């Protein structure tokens, strides 16, 4: 068994920043990550980092834009924390050497982005995430922080008191990809999940193959509620054949969207009369699909994003990476021709419920970055607000886990304070199904043993994971997990996409039930202990099943149109009824739905919901 004060799971932007902070606060910290840190998907972020750095700007304006962008479903204490801390964190990155794009006077450049009232998106070409990731990893190397890379975390070691709010997390169980060794990692002070989003639940996604929401699924099964999972961002400009992202920076710099008839539809069809292409992402994605659905798409599938008029020099200076992506993955020369684009799954606004210090309702368990929901983004994330979340909330989680004194959080977690319970209108049984106590079905969550001491708990968790893996490897007959995974991706992309309607959502739940049942028969074909990616992907597919179901349950429950969530049956925002977060608890395998009110009261003002137009 390995032992440290703080264990960080995942080594993208949030995980690296958390590890640095925890070490600064005096903790012995280790990172456990299924990929080497520089392979993390933070590296694919392109556009930039929103931060109110300039005198004409203010964190209050950034907060207002973010709240409006969230369609009034973000929690004010989380949003204000993000906007206040972001300038300091961006300058911290600059002090660590990050290669930001520069102005003539040598200061870091900023550009306009969708939904922003000031050009506050700080960037490094169109590869901001790459630079952020490498800069943070460099600091981890400098500090000698221990990294267990290519160690795949299988489960958390959490005590099993009846109420999740009474439970404690003592560590994780991980699998050494190179050797097949399964070991416990004891965390004396805390475990921080920084495992990214569940994009692989969809088949047209900008997300990496590794984005399987592992941390979300593990926290969910351990008792932490998932919050606002129905809010999935579909990015308006992804390449049709691969889902590769074309940065919002293209539109920020002046790129224009055209339909098949050569119309600048964002204006000409009235989708966003003021901001046009730079309206919020949900607005632009719906506009594109509406154009395609009404027959004005190109090849009935996509629209054109044109940046030719910006000129070669400006494109090479600020968007060079986009030229490479369009060329390599779509065979298009962005200097000479418009680029084909269509909406693709990009980001999960929801996730593991945390407060603004990254803490969950389980003692000693934290989450930060895309896997978490503080909630900063509410119903729709603004471009340029994901990277600041990584560094601001990552740092705070690191500090808190390491025991640094911090202002107590204003956001409550778990079933405490004000909340209401609800029932789920599902056509099929949800949750684990199968045989109770079956290690494959419940992801090994039966490990815990009451309030046993941490070492015993961890040993039990390790034993449960050994059983699960042996069972997966030893089965004689069975189907391959990729069949189950593609079934999940197919139904999610068909039924839980940009436009959602009740019957489609119910169909998705039926399909997911079938997929879950089929998963009972999965067999890992590769018998090896060495680098068994077949085994690990089979385990990831289980995580996707739980998360796809959570996304769909949320989407079915929320009968209104807010932010990224559009419902055919209710095409307007209903503030009287729905200014509340959708919460889903695992409840030992039978998911329970409940709601918690949104916090619109900020430090000095209350954000009044207004009509959201761009």
């Amino acid at each position, binding site marked *: 068994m390995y032992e440290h004060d703080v264990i960080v799971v995942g080594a993208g932007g949030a995980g690296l920043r958390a590890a640095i902070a925890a070490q600064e606060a005096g903790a012995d910290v280790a990172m456990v990550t299924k990929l080497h840190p*520089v392979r993390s998907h933070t590296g694919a972020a392109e556009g930039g980092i929103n931060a109110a750095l300039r005198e004409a700007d203010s964190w209050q304006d950034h907060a207002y834009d973010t709240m409006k962008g969230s369609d009034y479903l973000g929690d004010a204490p989380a949003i204000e924390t993000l906007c206040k801390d972001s300038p300091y964190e961006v300058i911290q990155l600059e002090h660590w050497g990050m290669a930001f794009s520069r102005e003539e006077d040598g200061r870091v450049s900023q550009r306009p982005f969708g939904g922003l009232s000031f050009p506050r998106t700080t960037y490094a070409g169109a590869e901001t995430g790459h630079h952020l990731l490498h800069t943070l990893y460099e600091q981890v190397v400098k500090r000698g922080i221990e990294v267990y890379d290519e160690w795949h975390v299988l489960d958390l070691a959490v005590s099993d008191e009846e109420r999740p709010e009474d439970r404690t997390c003592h560590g994780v169980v991980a699998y050494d990809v190179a050797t097949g060794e399964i070991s416990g990692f004891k965390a004396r002070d805390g475990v921080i999940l920084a495992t990214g989003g569940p994009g692989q639940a969809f088949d047209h996604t900008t997300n990496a193959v590794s984005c399987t929401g592992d941390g979300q699924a593990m926290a969910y099964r351990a008792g932490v509620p998932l919050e606002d999972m129905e809010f999935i961002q579909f990015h308006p400009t992804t390449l049709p054949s691969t889902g590769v992202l074309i940065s919002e920076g293209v539109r920020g710099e002046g790129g224009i969207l055209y339909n098949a008839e050569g119309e600048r539809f964002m204006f000409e069809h009235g989708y966003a009369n003021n901001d046009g292409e730079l309206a919020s992402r949900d607005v632009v994605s719906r506009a594109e699909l509406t154009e395609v659905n009404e027959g004005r798409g190109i090849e009935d599938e996509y629209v054109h994003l044109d940046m030719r008029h910006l000129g070669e020099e400006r494109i090479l200076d600020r968007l060079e990476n986009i030229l490479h992506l369009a060329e390599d993955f779509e065979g298009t020369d962005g200097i000479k021709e418009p680029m084909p684009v269509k909406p693709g799954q990009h980001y999960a606004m929801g996730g593991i419920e945390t407060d603004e210090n990254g803490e969950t309702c389980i003692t000693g368990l934290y989450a930060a970055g895309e896997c978490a929901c503080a909630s900063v983004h509410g119903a729709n994330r603004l471009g340029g607000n994901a990277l600041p979340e990584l560094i601001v909330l990552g740092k705070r989680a690191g500090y808190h886990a390491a025991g640094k004194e911090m202002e107590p959080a204003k956001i409550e977690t778990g079933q405490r304070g004000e909340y209401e319970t609800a029932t789920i209108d599902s056509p099929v049984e949800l949750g684990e199904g199968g045989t109770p106590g079956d290690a494959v079905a419940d992801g090994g969550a039966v490990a815990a043993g009451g309030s046993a001491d941490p070492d015993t708990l961890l040993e039990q968790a390790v034993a449960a994971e050994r059983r699960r893996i*042996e069972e997966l490897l030893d089965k004689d007959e069975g189907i391959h997990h990729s069949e189950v995974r593609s079934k999940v991706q197919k139904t999610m992309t068909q039924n839980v996409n940009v436009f959602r309607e009740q019957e489609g959502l119910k169909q998705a739940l039926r399909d997911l039930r079938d997929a879950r049942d089929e998963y009972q028969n999965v067999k890992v074909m590769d018998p090896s202990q060495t680098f068994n990616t077949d085994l690990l992907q089979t385990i990831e597919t289980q995580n996707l099943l739980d998360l796809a179901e959570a996304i769909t349950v949320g989407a079915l429950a929320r009968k209104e149109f807010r932010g990224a969530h559009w419902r055919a049956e209710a095409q307007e925002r209903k503030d009287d009824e729905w200014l509340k977060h959708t919460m889903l608890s695992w409840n030992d395998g039978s998911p329970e739905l409940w709601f918690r009110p949104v916090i619109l009261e900020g430090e000095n003002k209350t954000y009044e919901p207004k009509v959201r137009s761009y």
Partner: protein
Amino acid sequence: MSTHPPQQEQEPEESPTEQPPESVEETSPGKQKRETDKADRRIREAQREADEAAADDGPTRHIKVFRYDPEVESKQEPRFDDFHVPFEKGMTVLDALIYARDNYDPSLTFRHSCRQAICGSDAFFVNGDQCLGCKTQISELSEPVRIEPLPHQDVVKDLVVDMEHFYDEMKAVDPYFDPDETPAGDLEEQRQSRQNREKVKMSTRCIWCGACFSSCNIAAGDNQYLGPAALNKAYRFAMDEREGSERKQQRLETIEQEHGVWRCQTQFSCTNVCPKDIPLTEHIQELKREAVKNNLKFW
């Protein structure tokens, strides 16, 4: 599109090339239970069926993939397996591997993640060149497309190589920004000229894929040679005007050591294979010039 004789595309009987194990004498009991060869046989049957189906349906691409697993009996002896993958426009080497894995042989093992040439996981040796699988169009390669792990690194399994040595070399150049001082104010940035940012820009694009290191003859012969990626990393900081002169001096001493820049024989193999188009050889040459200038100072 295709540059190869069509008959090559349809030889299902050929795949997989040779076949092994009459005796299955597994040592550990766990492995015995797993009935390796049974699984192997099933996989082969699945492939043959799929091949035949594919041959009927449309064009396929023939890939030959290096296989090795130190603990699975049938794979202990390195070999090549043949797969015939249905071709689609835009298909990359990585797409072909994923297809072969998900449809023919789930034990086919390779690192990959982002699919967009930024995570640097999937550098392979394809038809004799280092490249990123996700960024290489299969239609541009002659058949059969031979896919091997990166040369000059230990093979862990199939296309997975041990990257530790590469990472160690990266760490040997103090790969982190280290200025003499940073501005006192928490919100005060260091100024950097556009020209200087431009100068280091290409060097900051490195994705640590290891293609350059694998292509370098010198690195192959001298296990302690820092190699192009690490030297490029040193360049990235040594040329950054925000670092102080003393630190630059230390950096130049690091890269000037016995296994540093002077080993480079400007063969340009690293520059030729770099998927991010970093002018690695030029950067190494410039470090050599800086080192010389710097030494002259003390004469």
